[in-house]
């Protein structure tokens, strides 16, 4: 009896201890995320500025939920790619990298393929083209976080006054730009960049694409020194006649400013730039703007630029980084990010559920045009050499707009550079 009694008492104690342990573990799982993640710190290579601000504002939620700390190493747009190339190729410095989609192919050598992980992860809510932005040669290297699209932004009130409809073709755009230009009143038809800024060559590329030209053809050669490429470039140069006089020194924020101060009636701009245009404290034209797809010629080719999150192969914290990547591209973060007060930019969401949410439309008036553009988006060439090709394209377009090169010479030089870089 005694033995049985002792045994029964010990069993009860063990059972009680097991119950307490189970409760402790369960409580820790519920209250503070997964146990393995407790105390983990991951280092993120991030774009400095507005997107970083949005992330930092929401990060405590993630850290509370998972117990994973995120250390942010932010760099400005001009330096981020260089920093990632150096870091990924030389040391295990980062656990997660925030990348613009053209960088996926060049950096793929150093990125962890996520295809297997993504199989157990519901991706059906992502806009398919946004998800595709994180893939290269059939392998998913990154999850989409912030899809951006070039949009045509126009002054609804001015178009209504003239009884005009927003342009859908480049010819209509040229006609509208001409109609709204009055240099004596410092009023101009369109704001674009024409400096050596990266945006300049991207504007010209959209125009060339829509005429049927390709920066790199299917057989891997330069393809802008063609009638279609020439036509696209000519339209871009023609547009500059109806742009503010100092457009050759414009960069991304200058295009915004031209719209916000009422100087320009239209702009081709990335959607993220449109958010501050709708901020009444920063914009004289808030509530007066309309948004539509960039014009078409023989085809509709709005340019896609999706910011994505990937994990370096050499990261020692891949599981924690995956948890972060999922959260960063989640509906929860997307809803919070799209409502974040605007300053100079915006973060969108790659998820249909967020982009179609009524609250999102209230904070991002251009979201319908963004989603429509995203569904038919055209991507820049997915090549390991693309950063080199785009840089050469940027410099040569800058020479063209600065008058260093004629159009003929510029088109030849763009193709020659592309062929040299690709070894053709």
């Amino acid at each position, binding site marked *: 009896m005694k033995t049985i009694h002792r045994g029964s008492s010990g069993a009860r104690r063990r059972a009680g201890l097991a119950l307490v342990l189970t409760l402790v573990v369960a409580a820790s799982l519920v209250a503070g995320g997964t146990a393995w993640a407790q105390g983990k710190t991951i280092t993120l290579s991030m774009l400095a500025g507005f997107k970083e601000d949005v992330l930092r504002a929401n990060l405590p939620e993630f850290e509370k939920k998972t117990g994973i700390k995120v250390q942010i190493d932010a760099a400005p747009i001009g330096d981020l790619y260089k920093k990632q190339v150096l870091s990924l190729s030389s040391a295990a410095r980062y656990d997660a990298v925030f990348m613009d989609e053209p960088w996926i192919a060049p950096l793929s050598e150093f990125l962890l393929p996520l295809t297997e992980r993504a199989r157990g992860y519901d991706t059906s809510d992502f806009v398919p083209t946004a998800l595709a932005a994180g893939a290269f040669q059939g392998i998913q290297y990154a999850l989409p976080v912030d899809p951006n699209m070039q949009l045509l932004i126009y002054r609804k009130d001015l178009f209504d006054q003239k009884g005009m409809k927003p342009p859908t073709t480049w010819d209509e755009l040229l006609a509208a730009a001409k109609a709204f230009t009055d240099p004596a009143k410092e009023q101009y038809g369109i704001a674009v960049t024409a400096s*050596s800024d990266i945006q300049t060559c991207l504007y010209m590329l959209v125009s060339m694409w829509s005429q049927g030209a390709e920066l790199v053809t299917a057989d891997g050669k330069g393809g802008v020194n063609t009638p279609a490429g020439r036509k696209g470039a000519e339209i871009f140069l023609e547009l500059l006649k109806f742009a503010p006089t100092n457009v050759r020194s414009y960069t991304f924020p200058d295009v915004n400013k031209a719209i916000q101060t009422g100087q320009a009636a239209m702009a081709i701009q990335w959607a993220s730039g449109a958010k501050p245009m709708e901020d009444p404290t920063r914009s004289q034209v808030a509530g007066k703007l309309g948004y539509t797809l960039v014009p078409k010629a023989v085809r509709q080719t709005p340019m896609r630029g999706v910011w994505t999150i990937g994990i370096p192969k050499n990261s020692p914290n891949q599981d924690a980084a995956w948890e972060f990547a999922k959260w960063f591209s989640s509906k929860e973060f997307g809803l919070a990010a799209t409502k974040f007060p605007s300053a100079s930019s915006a973060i969108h969401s790659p998820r249909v559920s967020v982009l179609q949410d009524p609250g999102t439309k209230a904070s991002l008036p251009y979201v319908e045009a963004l989603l429509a553009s995203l569904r038919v988006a055209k991507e820049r060439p997915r090549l*390991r050499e693309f950063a080199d090709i785009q840089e050469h394209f940027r410099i040569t377009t800058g020479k063209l707009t600065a008058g260093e090169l004629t159009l003929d010479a510029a088109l030849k030089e763009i193709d020659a550079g592309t062929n040299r870089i690709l070894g053709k």
Partner: protein
Amino acid sequence: MRARGGRGFLLPGLLFLFAIDVVPLIYSAWLSLYDWWLLRPSSIRFIGLGNYLRLATDPELRRAVVVTGLFTAGAVVLEFLVGLGLALLFSQPFRFLRPLRVVLLLPLFVVPVVGATMWRVIFHPDMGPLNYYLNLFGLGRPPWLSDPTLALVSITLVDAWRTIPFMFLVMYAGIEVLPAELFEAAAVDGASRWQAFRHITVPLLSYIMLVAVLIRGMDAFRELDIIYVLTGGGPGTATQTIQMLSYRVFGLGHMGLANALGIITLGLVAVLCYLLMRAILRPERSGGAA
């Protein structure tokens, strides 16, 4: 024996210099012989002088050398003349000038990137204060940073703004220690102020001038931060110096090519130094300045 023992004390210093100066240089020269792209770490290969041969026929490098030469010459000449002029002015016994010496030195204490960003705002075609006042006087709104010629002038002016205080400081210090009796003797002999300047001040200051011009010349040749912030090398390649080109190539991960550009820059700076020293010291060797 004593001399040999004394030389031994130089060894640690020499080893230190060798380690921090010569070894990285040799390593850089060695890397310049490789085709090494960071994005293809598995295909690094020795190509001998391949990078140099490629650069020898590269029109972008030729253009960058010309831009670097124009920028360096323009900046150094402007800084030298203004710095010398200010040093001569401030060496005069005017009391009211003394507090201004500190003000004159202020640009030296401004972080180059901050200074360049400030100038970017000043040069802004629509919002900048410079064009605002020019426009008030009917002079329009010059595109300071987007016109190829004006952009080169603008970066030269900003470099001058930043480093004229250095030139002033070095030459002012030199003028202050010149022996007064030489000038008094010249005055007794009836020499004019110009003759005293030409035949006493300039020869006695020539070494100091040489040092100042050499330091600034090498510095201007390697200028990056001001150009990066103000124009990024544009418009087109109008302000793309060799350093900007190297930075671009390095940023794209082409290590061999970037190192070859670095070695070429080193060679050009060495030639520049040699020519400057020869030009400035020639009268000294022939006894003309003495």
